[in-house]
């Protein structure tokens, strides 16, 4: 697929391309590579698990599983575009979920009449949005005002937010919400799972924000060259605050989906999601040095990871390779995939840096 891109640039010549298209090309190349990988994983898993992978049941269960990871990956993407990183997304999601869960569990004991219940659910959502906004604001202040490197600031707040979750729950799970509240995570609208709808909606919003608005353009500019961004008069501090606020709000949404789907909230839920969310963002063509990335890439990447994960799960039923496949095989595969993708992107991305 790198040939294909080379053809484009050879036939027309880099100078002949409109500036806008030229800027998109590297990302387009990565997206095409990713599409090929996704299809390849899909075909491989279908062939390896005959009669199991290509079933309605499998697709239905996958559609409920990947949206939460996808939303976390969107949050990481937003921070990576600016050249930073948000490691606290999972902790924010869990803390938000726990606060919402505290409100929802009140509703189970209360009168289940419709208006009260709706008020409780609305209250939980508002509390979730407010809590995640507060977390994001803290991250933003630390990074923009105190000039702490994003890795370290979010490393600290990751521990801090998780610690608060632990203090609130004392390590226990908060479980048991009213049936209506489980709609966000388990319901379907016209046959489409609600979490999938939420993820697609958020992905569209992030994509439009990144590619069509002034804020998105500024974020890319800051990620590509922070010095130039500052000297061209951008308010870098405000942009950074907005970035981490947005990442936190997205994480809060993921937290709501998680507690609604699993019907419980825990301080340490999804500890392996952090690596996966970063992996999805990088797979999706987001350059960790900033300046590139799109929500479409994230969508493809999260799909390929879900195919891989579900397919490997099914392979456990296979007699010959089954005994060698467990959660740790998946951990190994993800790490190897992350390293491999970065090397592939290195080779394919090289022409444009020359």
């Amino acid at each position, binding site marked *: 697929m790198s040939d294909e891109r080379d053809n484009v640039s050879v036939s027309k010549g880099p100078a002949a391309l409109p500036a806008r298209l030229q800027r998109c090309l590297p990302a387009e190349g990565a997206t095409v590579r990713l599409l090929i990988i996704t299809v390849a994983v899909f075909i491989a898993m279908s062939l390896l698990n005959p009669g199991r992978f290509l079933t309605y049941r499998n697709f239905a269960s996958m559609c409920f599983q990947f949206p939460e990871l996808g939303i976390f990956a969107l949050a990481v993407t937003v921070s990576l575009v600016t050249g*930073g990183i948000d490691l606290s997304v999972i902790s924010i999601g869990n803390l938000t979920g726990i606060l919402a869960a505290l409100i929802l569990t009140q509703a189970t004991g209360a009168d289940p009449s419709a208006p009260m219940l709706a008020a409780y659910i609305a209250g939980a959502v508002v509390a979730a949005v407010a809590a995640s906004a507060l977390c994001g604001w803290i991250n933003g202040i630390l990074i923009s005002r105190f000039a702490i490197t994003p890795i370290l600031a979010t490393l600290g707040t990751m521990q801090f937010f998780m610690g608060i979750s632990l203090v609130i729950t004392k390590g226990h799970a908060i479980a048991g919400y009213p049936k209506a509240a489980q709609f966000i995570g388990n319901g379907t609208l016209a046959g489409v799972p609600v979490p999938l709808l939420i993820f697609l909606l958020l992905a569209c919003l992030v994509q439009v924000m990144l590619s069509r608005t002034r804020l998105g353009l500024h974020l890319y500019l800051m990620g590509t060259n922070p010095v130039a961004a500052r000297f061209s008069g951008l308010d870098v501090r405000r942009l950074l605050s907005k970035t981490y606020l947005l990442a936190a709000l997205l994480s809060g949404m993921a937290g709501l989906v998680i507690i609604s789907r699993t019907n419980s909230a825990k301080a340490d839920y999804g500890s392996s999601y952090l690596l996966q969310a970063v992996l999805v963002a990088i797979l999706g063509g987001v350059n960790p040095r900033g300046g590139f990335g799109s929500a479409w890439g994230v969508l493809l990447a999260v799909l390929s990871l879900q195919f891989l994960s579900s397919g490997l799960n099914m392979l456990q039923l296979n007699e010959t390779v089954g005994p060698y496949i467990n959660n740790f095989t998946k951990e190994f595969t993800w790490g190897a995939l992350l390293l491999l993708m970065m090397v592939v992107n*290195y080779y394919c991305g090289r022409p444009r840096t020359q």
Partner: protein
Amino acid sequence: MDRLSRALHRHEFYLAATLALLASIIALINPAFLSLSNLFDLCKSSTVLGIFALGVLIVLLSSGIDISFTAIAVLSMYVTSRVLLAVDYSGPVIVAFAVAGCLGLLLGLFNAFFISCYRLPTLIVTLGSASVFRGFLLAFIGTKIVTSLPAGMVEFSKRSLFATTLPGGETTGLAASFLLFVVAAVMVCVLLRYTMLGRGIYALGGNPEAAVRAGFNIARLQFFIYGLVGFLSGVAGLIHACMMRNANPFDLVGTELVVIAAVVLGGASITGGRGTVIGTVLGVFLLVTINNSLILLGIPSYWQKVLVGLVIVISTGITARRNPRALHGVVVS
């Protein structure tokens, strides 16, 4: 007088003062803190954390970050124990350390290969390699805890210095492994202060472009840095196994953030070029004292994460304030 006032403005001075203040407060509340066995225990608890921290310091100085060192440690520790048991080895413990150190070195070079040859961000590479190492260990090598370690390692865990008998008739002593921490600290200190390699590490962290112009070979430096971190991690992993008297493949991973916190607390700047061994050692002692004293002071252990998070945020905030070079945090690796 000038020297004195300069010493008073150093980060290390504030750390030492904080540590002294904290120790006196804890001792006032619970006098058991100052007992010989508790102090020896503090030293013992800081050994593994401390050796990890020395490795992390070197990486941070070069403006990189490594979060795979605990995975390296647990992989080398577990493989070494299994191999030595398989060949029925019963000789001195030094061989075990050599094997674990060399395994760690190889894994560190694996990191260096990706970081140096493909110029990839260190955080992402080590995030990936950490799960590769740990996944490989747990999926293909084993998940069982090895409870009967080779004789040499068991003997090493029992050896202690300054053994004394307490009035109660109990004997207490400083674990011999603490000596390894001291040796490692002195060697890293000498490396950083008095050798060209050490200068190179500071130079790379301060300004890579300037380091190249000054004639440093960046690739060779990076292979050295990540190799050394791997070696130190392997050794620390083995010490951990000796202390626990078992090799548990689920141990250690998850503590990397505490180690990074200790180093940052010790005054090392993540943008590179700043940090000292003394600061790191003090940072380690401070963090171990906080953790240890939560129990002595009767604070529930689930507050620990909140405190560690606060410590990272506050200490990085202070370091960032002292370092105006940081361009509003728009730096990833």
